[in-house]
C-alpha cells in the first residue's frame, strides 16, 4: 500500500530481554515492522509497552540489563546488529537520527548549542568546512523557526525553554538530512500549545526533507496528528498495524479497541466518562474561598546591570471566589503563574498585595492557634507522592500524624479515625502497620489523600496531584474524589495543565496567562463557547482525535509567552493574539462578565471572534 520500493528499515522478529537475577523477561517480543522512504509510522503504547526500548533498539542503543536476543534490524538491507561499531557510528547521526523525550539533557550543558551541532555535523561529514557547517546549522535553525537563529547559535542549552530546546534537537537531527528519524515521545514534556507547534513543524519539515519518521507516543491524539500508519504496541508485542483512520474507525485487536475507547474525550460526551454533575446552581451558596486582587512578585538578579534586580511578576491581581461544593480548575501552561498561586493559596508564601479569605478569615494574617485551627480546613496535595511520605514511619502513623499535631484526641479515637479514612480512600486496613516501601504510585497518593482527609478538610487544593499517575489510576482517584465530595461536601481546587481531566471533573474553570486569570467560566462555556482567544488556542492544541470546535489553523499560537519581567501595557496576550487590534495595545482588558457567572478578559469577549465550529459528533468507539 506504500510505495513499491524496498523499505528503508525492516525490523524482523526483534526480541529484547531484561536480564534479571531471576528469569529473563521479554520487553519486546518478536516485533516486526517496515518503514518506507518518506513514510511516517506512528508507534503507540502505554508506559511499559516497550515503545522506548523499541525506538532505542532502532539506533542500536540497547544497554544492559537489556539485551537484544534475536531478530534483525535491517537498514537498507544491512543488519545493524551485525554491523561493525565504526560503521554504526557513522550511520547514526548521518542516516538514522534519534530524538528523545528530554531535550534539556541531550546536549552538553556547558557549550553553546550551535557549536555542538556543528561538532556533530563535522564528525559525520568530515570534509565540510567550518564556514559551510555554520551556515548549514543556522539555516536549519531558521527552518525550525528559531527566532534570531544566528544569535541563538551561541546560546547555551539552559538558556532555552523546553520547547525551543526540542527545536534545537530537531535541528541537530535534520542537519545531516537523514533518511530516517526516530522521534521517541518528543512532545511528552511540553505544554500543549508548544507540543502542537512542534508537531506541526515536524510535519512541515517531513514534507521538505522527505525524511521517514518513526513517531513514538503514548497519546493517540498526538500520533493521529502526524502519522500515516500506526503500530500498536502492548506488553512488548505488536498487536496491530493499520492506517490511522483505520485504527480509529475499525480497531481490530481488543487492546486497540480499549485504547481508543479510553482516550479522554473533551467535546464528545463519553458515555461513562463524565464525573462531575454540574454543581448545585443555587445562588445563595456559601463562598468558601475568596481570593481578592492577589499579587506576588519575585526578585531575581538582573545580569545586565551591576548589582541589579529584576522583578518577575508571577501573579498579577488575581481575584475569584470559590463556592462550597464547587470544583474549580485552574489551568494554564508552564510559567503562567498557577504554581505560584498554589503556593499562595496553601500559605507556603504570603501574597505581596491582596488577601486570601478562607471562610471569611484572611489566611495571611492569622497566627498560632487560630491558624492551626483554620489550617485543618484546607489541605494541599502535591504531585509527587514519593517525596512527601516519610519512609521510616508506618502507614498508619503517617496518616495519624496530622491528628497528633492538631491534638485533642485519644489514642483509640485516632486509631478509629485512621482506619475509617483508610477504608474510605481504598487502602486495606492491614497496610496500617507496614512501611510505605513497595507501595505503588497510586497507593502512595492514596496515603497522601488519607493524611489530608483525617482532618476533615472543607477545601482540598490539588496541585498537579494526579499528573504522575497513568490513565487508569488517575480515573480511579478521580472517582474517589467525586465520592468524597458527595459524602462530605468537599470543595476542590484542581491546579492542572490537563484540560481533559479538568473537563471531566470541574464545574468551573479559570484559565491563567502571564500571572492573570484571563477567563473564568463554567465548564460548558469554557469548552464550547470560550470568550478568550488564549483559551481557544489551548483547546485547539490539545491532542485529540475528536472534531474540535476551535481549528488549529485559526487559533494555534506561534512562539512562547513573553517573560513576566517587563510586561508591556495593554493586553498581555496581544503579542501572540491572532485577533489583536489597536485598542489591545493601549487598554488592558479587565475580567468582565459575559454571561451568568462567566467572565473573560478580552475586548472581543462580547463578540468579534469567529464562532466555534459546531461539533460534528462523530464517535469512533
Amino acid at each position, binding site marked *: 500500500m506504500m510505495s513499491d520500493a524496498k523499505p528503508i528499515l525492516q525490523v524482523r522478529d526483534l526480541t529484547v530481554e531484561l536480564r534479571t537475577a531471576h528469569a529473563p523477561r521479554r520487553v519486546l517480543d518478536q516485533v516486526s515492522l517496515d518503514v518506507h522512504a518518506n513514510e511516517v509510522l506512528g508507534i503507540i503504547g502505554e508506559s511499559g509497552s516497550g515503545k522506548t526500548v523499541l525506538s532505542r533498539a532502532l*539506533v542500536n*542503543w540497547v*544497554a544492559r540489563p537489556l539485551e537484544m536476543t534475536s531478530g534483525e534490524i535491517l537498514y537498507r538491507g544491512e543488519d545493524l546488529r551485525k554491523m561493525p561499531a565504526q560503521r554504526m*557510528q*557513522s550511520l*547514526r*547521526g*548521518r542516516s538514522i*537520527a*534519534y530524538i*528523545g523525550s*528530554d531535550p534539556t*539533557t*541531550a*546536549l*552538553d*550543558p*556547558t*557549550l553553546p548549542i550551535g557549536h555542538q551541532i556543528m*561538532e*556533530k555535523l563535522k*564528525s*559525520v561529514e568530515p570534509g565540510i568546512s567550518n564556514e559551510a557547517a555554520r551556515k548549514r546549522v543556522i539555516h536549519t535553525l531558521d527552518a525550525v523557526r528559531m527566532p534570531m537563529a544566528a544569535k541563538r547559535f551561541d546560546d*547555551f542549552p*539552559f538558556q532555552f525553554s523546553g520547547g525551543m530546546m526540542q527545536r534545537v534537537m530537531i535541528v*541537530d*537531527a535534520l542537519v*545531516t538530512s537523514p533518511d530516517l528519524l526516530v522521534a521517541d515521545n518528543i512532545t511528552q514534556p511540553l505544554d500543549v500549545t508548544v507540543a502542537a507547534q512542534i508537531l506541526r513543524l515536524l510535519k512541515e519539515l517531513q514534507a521538505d526533507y522527505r525524511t521517514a519518521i518513526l513517531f513514538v507516543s503514548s497519546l493517540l491524539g498526538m500520533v493521529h496528528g502526524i502519522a500515516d500508519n500506526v503500530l500498536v504496541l502492548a506488553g512488548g508485542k505488536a498487536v496491530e498495524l493499520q492506517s490511522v483512520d483505520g485504527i480509529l474507525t475499525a480497531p481490530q485487536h481488543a487492546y486497540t479497541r480499549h485504547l481508543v475507547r479510553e482516550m479522554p474525550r473533551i467535546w464528545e460526551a463519553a458515555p461513562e466518562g463524565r464525573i462531575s454533575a454540574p454543581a448545585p446552581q443555587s445562588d445563595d451558596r456559601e463562598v468558601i474561598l475568596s481570593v481578592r486582587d492577589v499579587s506576588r512578585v519575585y526578585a531575581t*538578579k538582573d*545580569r*545586565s*546591570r*551591576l*548589582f541589579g534586580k529584576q522583578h518577575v511578576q508571577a501573579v498579577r491581581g488575581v481575584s475569584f471566589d470559590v463556592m462550597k461544593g464547587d470544583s474549580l480548575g485552574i489551568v494554564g501552561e508552564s510559567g503562567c503563574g498557577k504554581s505560584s498561586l498554589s503556593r499562595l493559596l496553601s500559605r507556603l508564601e504570603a501574597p505581596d498585595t491582596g488577601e486570601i479569605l478562607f471562610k471569611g478569615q484572611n489566611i495571611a494574617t492569622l497566627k498560632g492557634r487560630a491558624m492551626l485551627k483554620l489550617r485543618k480546613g484546607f489541605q494541599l496535595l502535591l504531585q509527587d507522592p514519593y517525596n512527601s511520605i516519610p519512609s521510616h514511619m508506618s502507614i498508619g502513623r503517617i496518616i495519624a500524624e496530622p491528628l497528633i499535631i492538631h491534638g485533642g484526641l485519644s489514642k483509640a479515637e485516632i486509631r478509629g479515625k485512621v482506619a475509617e479514612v483508610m477504608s474510605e480512600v481504598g487502602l486495606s486496613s492491614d497496610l496500617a502497620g507496614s512501611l510505605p516501601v513497595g507501595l505503588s504510585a497510586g497507593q502512595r497518593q492514596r496515603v497522601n489523600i488519607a493524611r489530608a482527609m483525617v482532618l476533615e478538610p472543607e477545601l482540598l487544593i490539588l496541585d498537579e496531584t494526579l499528573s504522575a499517575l497513568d490513565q487508569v489510576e488517575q480515573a480511579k482517584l478521580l472517582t474517589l474524589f467525586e465520592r468524597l465530595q458527595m459524602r462530605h461536601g468537599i470543595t476542590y481546587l484542581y491546579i492542572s495543565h490537563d484540560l481533559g481531566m479538568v473537563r471531566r471533573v470541574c464545574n468551573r474553570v479559570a484559565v491563567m496567562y502571564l500571572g492573570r486569570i484571563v477567563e473564568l467560566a463554567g465548564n460548558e462555556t469554557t469548552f464550547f463557547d470560550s470568550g478568550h482567544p488564549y483559551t481557544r488556542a489551548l483547546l485547539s492544541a490539545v491532542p485529540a482525535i475528536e472534531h474540535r470546535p476551535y481549528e488549529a489553523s485559526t487559533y494555534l499560537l506561534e512562539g512562547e509567552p513573553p517573560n513576566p519581567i517587563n510586561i508591556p501595557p495593554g493586553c498581555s496576550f496581544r503579542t501572540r493574539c491572532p485577533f489583536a487590534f489597536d485598542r489591545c495595545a493601549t487598554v488592558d482588558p479587565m475580567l468582565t462578565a459575559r454571561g451568568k457567572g462567566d467572565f473573560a478578559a478580552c475586548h472581543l469577549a462580547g463578540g468579534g471572534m469567529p464562532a466555534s465550529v459546531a461539533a460534528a459528533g462523530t464517535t469512533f468507539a
Partner: protein
Amino acid sequence: MIFALDFFLRRMAQGLVIIVLVAMLIFTLLRVVPGDPVRTMLGPMASAEVAEQTAQKMGLRDPIPVQFAKYVGQVVTGDFGRSFVRSAQGASTGGSRGGATFDASNRAPVMGLILTAVPYSLLLAGLALGISLLISLPIGIAAGLKSGKWPDRLALYLSSIFVSLPNIWLALVLIFLVSVKGGLLPAIGYQNWTYAILPAFVLAIELSPVFIRSASVAVSSNMLEPYVAAGQIRGLSRARMILVHVLRNAMIPLLNVLGIQAIGLLLGSLFVIEYAFNYPGVGLLMINAVFQRDFPVIQAIAILACTLLVLVNILVDFAATNIDRRLQY
C-alpha cells in the same frame, strides 16, 4: 564583562570580611594564650620591672581592641611591623644577652622576612602541586572511566596507602633512604632547586588522594550524564565525548578541590615539611615565630595566608563560571 565586575566586587568584599575576622581572631588568641613575648625578648635575666616597662612601651599592656586598631592602622599602610626576635642582620636574637633595654629599631621588618622566604615556598608548593597532579590525574581519570573495574580499585588502594602515611614519617624515611643512604638528592636546607624535590614529593603524596578521589568522582559522574550517551547516538564517537566534553566538565569540581582543599592542606603541611627539611620558606619562618612568640611575624603570615586562600578561591570560582556558564546564574 558586567558579570566579571559584579563577581569580583562582590567576592572581594566578602573576602575582605573574612580576612579581617581571621586577623582579629589570631590577634586576640595570641594575646590570651599563656606566654609573654617580652620574656623571650629580654631573656630570663631581666628584672620584672624592666620587662613590664618594655611591655608598656611596646603597647602590649593596652586593651586588645586598642592594640588591634593600632595594628590595623599600620597594616593598611603596608607596614606589618618589626619582628620581636630577629635582628635586622638576619640572626635570631635570644634573650640570653641580658640587655636591659629592648631596642626596636634594629629588629628586622616583618615584610622583609616574609618576602625573602616566599620564593622558596612558592617553588616548593608549585613543584608539589605539579608532581601530585602528574600522579593523580591519570590514575583518577582512568578510575573514573572504568568505574568499578581494576583501575578504580587501584586508585582506591593507592589513595588509602597515601592517606595513611604520616607526612613527617615519610619525610624522615625519604631523607634517610634517598638522601643519606642513596645520596641521590640533597635534603636539608637550601642551596639550589634540587633541594626542593624531596619535600615537594612528600607534599605531593599527601595531596594526591584528594585529587585522585575528586578526579575519579568527577569523571565517573559526568560519564553518567545523559548527554554522553545521547552524544554517541547523535553520531559522535565515545572517545570524542570523553575528550571534548567529559574531561572539560570534570574540571569544575577538580578546580574547586584545588582551590579549597589543596591550598588549605598545602599551607598546613608546608609548615611541618619545611621544618622537617629545614627548608627556608615561610613555613619555617612561621614555626620558629610560634616557638619564639614572635607576634608580628605570626600575625602577618596568618593574614597573608588567609588572603592567599581567599584570592585563590575567587580565581578558581571565576574559572569555573567560565567553563560552565550556568554557574553565572
